[in-house]
């Protein structure tokens, strides 16, 4: 998905470049690369073409996975999931991540993981530890509901003790309100 988005963005960027730069030739050259040709088609016939490159992307990933180490795979699967302020329910958009985590764990039967619950800096430290624990447990429960064995998941809270992002902005607070996966074995 991400790659498609990037490609779309590139195309748009290229489009923009045409309008604003004095050297349109360079922008025109870009489609000569095979990848770009495909995406230009995609831009023209939006609905159908989104589907096709998506399949191609999957194929690409499958090819890559043969070379990719388990660690790299894990890094791609185990993305942080984010939470609302002072909440610990799993957001709709986090489910996709959790679904791929669950299926990855289903493929890698002997893998065990830890889920760390984190909070932004605004609450008080002790309450945030309790809130972080709720987040890690909610995440674990979701994976268990998808068939992952609870014995394979350790939960731990760090409250606001291990901040990922140090600015005092909403963007930063959002990145910090997270459940983070750590592969133990």
């Amino acid at each position, binding site marked *: 998905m991400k790659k498609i988005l990037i490609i779309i963005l590139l195309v748009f960027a290229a489009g923009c470049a045409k309008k604003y730069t004095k050297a349109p030739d360079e922008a025109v050259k870009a489609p000569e690369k095979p990848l770009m040709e495909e995406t230009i088609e995609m831009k023209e016939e939006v609905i159908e073409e989104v589907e096709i490159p998506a399949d191609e992307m999957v194929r690409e990933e499958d090819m890559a996975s043969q070379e990719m180490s388990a660690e790299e795979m894990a890094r791609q699967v185990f993305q942080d999931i984010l939470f609302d302020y*002072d909440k610990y329910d799993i957001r709709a958009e986090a489910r996709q991540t959790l679904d791929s985590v669950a299926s990855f764990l289903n493929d890698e039967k002997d893998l065990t993981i830890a889920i760390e619950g984190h909070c932004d800096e*605004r609450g*008080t430290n002790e*309450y945030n*530890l309790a809130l972080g624990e709720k987040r890690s447990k909610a995440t674990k429960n979701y994976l268990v509901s998808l068939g992952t064995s609870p014995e394979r998941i*350790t939960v*731990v*809270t760090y409250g606001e*003790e291990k901040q990922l992002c140090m600015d005092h902005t909403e963007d930063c607070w959002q990145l910090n309100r997270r459940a983070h996966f750590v592969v133990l074995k």
Partner: protein
Amino acid sequence: MRIKLKTEKLEVRSNKSEFQRHTFKCRVLICTIILLTITPFSILWTPYTVDAKIYIDISSPAIRKLPVTINAKGSTKARELEWITKADLEATGMFTFVDPDVPGAEIIANMDVDTGSGLRVVLSVNDLIEGKEVLKKRFDASKLIIRPMAHSIANDIYKVATGKKGVFRTRISYLSPLPSGRKGIRLMDWDGFNSKRIVTRGLNSSHSWTQDGKYLLFSSERNRKWRIYILDFKTLKESILFSSKGLNLVGGTSKDDMVSFSSSRDGSSEIYIINTFGKKMKKLTRSFGIDLSPVFSPEGDKIAFVSDRSGGPQIYTMDSNGKGIQRVTFQGSYNTSPAWSPDSKWLAYTGRVNGKNQIFMVKSDGSEIWQLTMTGNNESPSFSPDGLFLAFDSDRDGERGIYIMRNTGEGQRRITKKGSIAMSPEWSPYTN
């Protein structure tokens, strides 16, 4: 004009027995102090018979400031001793200082300082109105330990003026990031000096003194396990008090050596009590949401705690058997970290107003609320053992640091160094 409230007779002491008693006391003092790496010093009273007068009634709503002269001489260290003593007394907001050669003081405290070998101070406190000496005392230390000596002298002057015990020899434990980034526990004097590391392992969070001041209970995360540990100040050895799966956070201690804590061993975070040997555990709350930060009232009959059973976190009280739960805070939607005042009448806590955390005091029945801080984020209030001061942390000057203020919100000042990060202060009980 002097407000004269009550008089009481100081006990008449016989010379010899008093001397013996104090020699014994000193030995106890040595034990408690060695671990804090302060050289012990002995105190010898000159026996006295006098009508003790209260110069300042600190329970009076409008305290007048007592004009005093503090005058130390006899050594180059005398000035330093005088400054520290004055700073202690100044912080109470109860004194104004009058220069020695200016009239107007009602009390004069003269210190004769001798640094010939170690440190010897003879303190003489005189009532200038009545024209008589009200206290004479000799302090001996085998080493040149200015700060503890000055704090002891300040305690004595404060006792003469108010009839109450001062807190100038108490200490504050607090959290501070180690080079690893994880929080360790440190200990410092009440005025922020003499800071030293006491817990360096793990990621540390809530902590609480036992009422005898000999142990510190603390919560620490090590290898993804949150356990409650107990640290012996004498040996600086730590051992596990409570361990289970989930989050285990110590709350407070009672005068009969019970420890209140929260644990999510059964799923959700609930309040428990246990004794300092890790025995006689009792579960006190059963609710779906988060219950934590339980603190015993000074009498040990009540426990204040935080619960989100109503939606957001609020302060509640209950009897120490878990019955009679009452909600105390109704203002605001995020109220945490309760602390009892030593007279049991008030709870200090951290409340969220306009997106910032502030320190509040609420009557323990919820009937009256005062906001004590206004700028920055202010968290984690802890009362001094006499209830006159609160320690808390604040980011008002940038980096989070420890501050103290009087229970009126007056006299707020940072006691940890600017630029060094410090938070979550816990004031010790009286330690000697």
